[in-house]
């Protein structure tokens, strides 16, 4: 038998409707491997509403409820309450949503569920825009990126929303970042989160070739570079306080290596790149400082 670094069992079928090289499809494949069949998915409007396939077919090997766009967390809250009263607490209740359905229109339902401590694992596959409707800005879209609503002449003026920081401020038991490139790390985090009670969230960076204007074959490479350049660090926060960085590159690669591969950044000037580099540097240092701070306050 092959020795594998991720679970062998597949719960997602091929034949689904993701684009060539879709990071979001791979994210689901990996997540389901980690979760296993005792899982119920709630999926709001997002590419996955299409990817899973048309009636009467489904690519996900687990029960799945297609929900209105803004209700991933609230519908899951109901599923979770039902599992509890029906004595099926061994079922993983999972909300699976895009960044738009999470950072934007789904935010309140999440905040509510997080505050109540609903027993939900929320996974956001973050492709950094509304892809299902054809690449519009979400609040997860990075600073200065192009989308159809942040045109080249006027790219995104705001930095990416810090969903992890926001959830940490809700003091939920577990939040973490992940990417499809670091598949083992992602699988491990999903498994870990699945064992914790309460509201948990994992943000998995999932490159999207048409949305990022990249060739499909570099999906993994991009996800890897996002980590290696410090654009998207891999870390966890427990109980809103305990920060742990999972991958600490000795030296961060320059962000340009990541940016230059993507059509959505093709308009950046030298100054823009420098500005982004400075932001990334500072954020990285801040993250290191937060990790350090966690240690300081441990015995408060």
């Amino acid at each position, binding site marked *: 038998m092959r020795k594998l670094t991720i679970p062998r069992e597949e719960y997602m079928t091929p034949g689904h409707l993701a684009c060539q090289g879709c990071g979001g499809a791979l994210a689901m494949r990996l997540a389901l491997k980690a979760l296993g*069949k*005792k*899982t*119920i998915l*709630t999926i709001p409007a997002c590419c996955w*509403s*299409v990817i*899973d*396939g*048309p*009636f*009467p*077919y*489904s690519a*996900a*090997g*687990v*029960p*799945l*409820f*297609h*929900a*209105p766009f*803004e*209700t991933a*967390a*609230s*519908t*899951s*809250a*109901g*599923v*979770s*309450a*039902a*599992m*509890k*009263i*029906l004595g099926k607490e061994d*079922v993983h209740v999972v909300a699976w949503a895009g960044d738009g359905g999470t950072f934007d229109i789904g935010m*309140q*339902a999440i*905040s*509510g569920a997080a*505050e*109540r401590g*609903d027993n939900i694992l929320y996974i956001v596959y973050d492709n950094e825009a509304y892809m299902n409707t054809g690449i519009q800005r979400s609040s997860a879209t990075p600073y200065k990126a192009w989308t159809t609503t942040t045109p080249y002449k006027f790219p995104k003026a705001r930095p990416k929303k810090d969903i992890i920081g926001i959830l940490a401020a809700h003091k939920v038991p577990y939040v973490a970042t992940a990417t499809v490139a670091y598949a083992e790390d992602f699988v491990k985090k999903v498994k870990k989160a699945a064992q914790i009670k309460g509201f948990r969230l994992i943000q998995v960076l999932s490159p999207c070739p048409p949305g990022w204007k990249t060739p499909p074959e570099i999906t993994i490479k991009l996800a890897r570079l996002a980590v290696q350049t410090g654009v998207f660090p891999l870390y966890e926060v427990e109980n809103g306080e305990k920060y742990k960085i999972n991958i600490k590159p000795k030296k961060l690669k320059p962000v340009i290596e990541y940016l230059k591969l993507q059509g959505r950044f093709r308009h950046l000037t030298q100054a823009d790149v420098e500005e982004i580099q400075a932001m990334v540097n500072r954020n990285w240092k801040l993250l290191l400082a937060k990790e350090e701070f966690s240690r300081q306050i441990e015995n408060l």
Partner: protein
Amino acid sequence: MKRMAIVGNHALSYGALLSRVQVIAAYPITPQTQVVELLSEMCADGTLKAEFVKVESEHSAMAAVMGASASGARAFTATSSQGLALMHEVLHWVTGARLPVVMGNINRAFGPPWSIWTEQTDSLSQRDTGWMQIYAQDNQEVLDSVILAYKVSEQVLLPTMVVLDAFFLSHTSEPVEIPDQEKVDEFLPPYENKYILNPDDPHAFGGLTNPEWYMELRYKIHKAHEQSLDLIEKEGKEFEKMFGRYYGLVDPYKVDDAEIILVAISTAASTARYAVDLLREKGKKVGLLRIRVFRPFPYQKVKDILSNAKKVIVLDRNLSPGAGGIVASEVRGALANVKNHPPVFSYIMGLGGRDITTKHIMELFEEVEKMDEGKDIIWKGVKL
């Protein structure tokens, strides 16, 4: 069986309790708040074994009961006006998902301006969401209707709204018979649904459906409504056998020989019944058709009962701006294809909690007696 004086909001809560609801998600709003409060207490002290999800909005309340119902739990919520409107997208969704959720709605006027008083526009303007709608006229009916709603909803896989007037029912204490739990259990079996989220039999629900089959799925929803028309009456009779009270689609009163029939819903119909009695005492041939179930709309019953009258009055405590009264538009729509049907006099009155007294209703009959041609809209009581 116990006779107790309770407000309509508590009648609603007792209905949920006796139906053994399993998941509740609700958000407070005047005049519904007491429902949330009593159910919170019942859950806290163990009287009701249910999970109460204390959501942060009505939108999430409806989503949560949807998720719960889709997972096989009997689910309940209650709201009013703004809260109901905020649920709107999810209301449509629950219908499409064919989930037998039951919800109480306390009729309150929409803002702006802010108003907390009764008016039926809130629920009636949800008439196209595919929810069944039952309008109660007293607190006993409120309680009984919740139980009946689950019984019917779970058979036809459609959600039901049990609707009551703000204050006139919600906050009015009056005697209500609380059925025994065992008898209710006998009437209403546990919720079973084979179309649920179940890891042992995994299905995806609601996936993209192209024009090939979408229409057929909608057709099925409509057919389920039609099936309900019979089922509501059948279960009503079953209920009567066990509890001694009958509820049907409509509630006709002294219509058989009536020359003028007034159509109304909710507490206005209750008041109208008193008015009919007073007028009958004066020898007037008048009658009342209370529409209890507004969705599915009981076209046939309405046609049958109204077509022999000489005139029909519809009292609407609601408004579809740019059109008129919502009940009237349905009644006129029902009569249109009846040959030689009576003219219809559509009155708008009582908006925003303006009181509808026995005297006002008697005036309607008196006014219509003198008119010949039907009128699509008559405003009653506007300070001109």
